[in-house]
């Protein structure tokens, strides 16, 4: 095999595995499972909600707003996580340790103030 393509071998293997596994499961279901179809059973399972509607249906804007708010606050974890992972190393440097600690506290404080603002403005009330 051309060595240039060596890096892609795992990709190919994963591809084969994914397709193969899916095929095996579906086929197994087809061959092993009993089939007694009724009308209810023929439609996709949606907890009783009518599954067929127009895809252009409008969602309330509140979904988006909540999603965005979630996204923003969720993303801040991206900064906290590496900090936490390296914090034990920061502690070893006596000069830097307080900076590392209070720096993150400052960040979190601002974040909480943002949360407080959001709360008071009523962004979290659904109605």
């Amino acid at each position, binding site marked *: 095999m051309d060595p240039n393509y060596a890096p892609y071998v795992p990709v190919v293997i994963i591809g084969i595995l994914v397709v193969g596994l899916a095929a095996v499961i579906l086929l197994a279901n087809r061959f092993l499972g009993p089939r007694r179809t009724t009308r209810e059973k023929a439609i996709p399972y949606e907890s009783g909600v009518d599954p067929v509607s127009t895809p252009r249906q409008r969602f309330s804007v509140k979904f988006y707003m909540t999603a965005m708010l979630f996204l923003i606050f969720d993303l801040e974890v991206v900064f906290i996580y590496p900090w936490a992972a390296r914090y034990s190393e920061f502690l070893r440097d006596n000069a830097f340790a*307080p*900076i590392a600690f*209070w720096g993150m506290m400052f960040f979190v404080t*601002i974040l909480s*103030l943002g949360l*407080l*603002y959001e709360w*008071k*403005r009523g962004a979290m009330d659904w109605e």
Partner: protein
Amino acid sequence: MVDDLLLISPLLIVTVMGLVSLLVGVFAPAGSFKGWLAFLTSFGFLAALGACYMLWHETSAGAAFSSQSFHYSLTLDHFGLALCGVILLGALLATLTAVHYLPAQKSDHAEYYALIAFSALGMMIMVMAADLLTLFVALEVMSISIYILAGFKRDSSFSTESAMKYFILGSFASAILLLGISFTYGATGTISMREIGLAVAGGDAHSELALFGMVMLIVAFGFKIAAAPFHMWTPDVYEGAPASVTGFMAVGVKAAGFGALARLLLTCFGAPEYRDGSAVSWETLIVILAVISMCAGNLMALAQKNLKRMLAYSAIAHTGYLLMALLVVPASSDGEQALNALGGGLVFYLLAYTLANVAAFGVAAAVGARGVEDAGEEAYAGLAGRDPMLAFALTIAMLSLLGIPLTAGFMGKLTLFGELLSSGGGEYLWLVVVAVVNSVVSAYYYLRVVMVAYMQDESAEKPIALLKSAPLRVAVGVAAILTLVFGIMPNKAINASTRAGYSLVHTSNPATYGARVSAAKPAITSTVEPKDVAHR
């Protein structure tokens, strides 16, 4: 650590003031008058100005601090401090114009003042940023706040539309900026400006990638500072945004953009081969942008009758003049070129521009306060009869923008053009001539404003409903008076801004100054008096 906090005290003060007004506003009863928050914020800006002043003298030896506590991501030098001062002054005056303007526009929300503070914060960090990441984040803090401010009159479709346009184009420009940062990073393997400069000067960088990065950075900043042909957003946004916001945006964004661009270009690409052409010189690019900007801005402004829109085109023209300041290379005493220094033209011109624009947009806010934003000719026709003081301030602002002697604008142009002439062996004489021609052409539309304000009658069907606001008058008056003061006795300010320009020598690329600055420790760079570099 506490010492380090002192170093960034202007930033901290503005941050805290922004947070306080955000929270105070949200606990205040809805519908109440929020103007008093303006005074709170202004007080914060004033305090930050004081802190800047203190730090300026702290660094009087010419030292530049770059603290380890912030991982060398901020540079505190005279250049940054001077521009912070300009930005804070603009923010202070623009805030005062908003006190009664916002209620008149039915948009009196506390968030306004917090957003002004946050965007000022972003601007200040921009001019101090020492690495590209800090620069990017600061730019976004500024931009996002300004997007919201531009759309602050939610009832006005103009305001919303201008915000949306600014947002789409601005985020597109951000992407270009990021691509530029990415290429520069790819070429050099670092995001610290100083190290990029070292790598570029030392020939360790992938030169084509770095070049691509440089061009994209210039394009992105060209967008922010409204340089043609990246200026298309300016008139729409300036016209649609509330006048008090436009005033702040016109001066703050420009000051921050120019500060960051100057530092970036001189630090990262200050090496001679990037300046005088053996690779490709960014100066050529800047020259082209400058010429296109001043010509296009002036020509388009000629036919413009809306005050705010005219000022937008004039902003483009002034970008052209200001870009010339980036080309100033002062001669040093020992005959070699002090490559990484700027003269005093940039900072002083920005100061003059800030004052004139704050006054002009202040007047626009006062005459346009009829619920419907309107700065057409009939809005300020015969203003002299209704309100001589506002008309006078408007006149001073126009004369300063035009560059009539005894105004700060004239001294700014004189400094800028004079410095460009005495640097670089006269190769830019033609550029100065182009700029002078342009500034004379601009007389036509600036004086038109004065003529309409003084010599036309008020329009019959739309009498002016002037905004009665003492803080606005104070802000406009202070701006006009300072314009005259800096025009008549500018020496101190020019000296300070020259010092600021020279301070870039210490903080930008050490490679070109190997002999002089090699002893620099990372924490505090060596101290060289500007006099060593200057001619005298």
